[in-house]
């Protein structure tokens, strides 16, 4: 299994609070991604990173920000959580571009916003 650790694995919080999810990899892969998974929508890309301090928006980036200060860590922040952000969040990594090599996923963070 790819060395990807997501933390926390579960979190319950209240609307309006800030939340940060962490993805840590031990594979030294250049590319990292954050997805959310919801019933009826499949996996949707939130943000991705193609190197330290290099990030870009995905399909559903509104309300989310990311940071990557080290190769191994990619943080996803919900500045002011809303109930619509209740979801399962997955981090993924890949050695090269997403249309050339498979991405490998962590086991997810289940986030509930009340």
């Amino acid at each position, binding site marked *: 299994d790819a060395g*990807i650790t997501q933390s926390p694995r579960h979190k319950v919080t209240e609307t309006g609070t800030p939340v940060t999810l962490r993805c840590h990899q031990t594979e030294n892969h250049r590319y990292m991604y954050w997805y959310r998974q919801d019933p*009826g*929508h*499949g*996996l*949707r*890309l939130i943000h*991705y990173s193609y190197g330290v301090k290099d990030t870009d928006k*995905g*399909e559903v980036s509104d309300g989310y920000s990311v940071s990557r200060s080290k190769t191994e860590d990619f943080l996803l922040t919900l500045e002011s959580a809303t109930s619509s952000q209740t979801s399962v969040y*997955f981090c*993924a990594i890949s050695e090269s*571009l*997403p*249309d*050339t090599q*498979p*991405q*490998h*996923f*962590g*086991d*997810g963070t289940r986030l509930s916003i009340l």
Partner: protein
Amino acid sequence: GESVGLHLPTLSVQEGDNSIINCAYSNSASDYFIWYKQESGKGPQFIIDIRSNMDKRQGQRVTVLLNKTVKHLSLQIAATQPGDSAVYFCADSPTGKLIFGQGTTLQVKP
């Protein structure tokens, strides 16, 4: 926008039979296709991929077939086992990023 769809939300097969999971894509510019398996409570696990210059690729007990004429992708699992029970996703990459379908749940009956 781009969408990748699977024909059936649920597929039920007998243990030992072969399974075929189908997927349709809409963008003929897609060059890379991939299948994932997701077990309950876990992240998607890479199964097999294929590029558009190929029609078929085989792995261990799995085969992916690509028909570019009708924009159709399928995953064949030989001698299906209880451990194959999971949700299977296809994804393609028309714009350089992966676009995922919604998944087919494979149920294996003993």
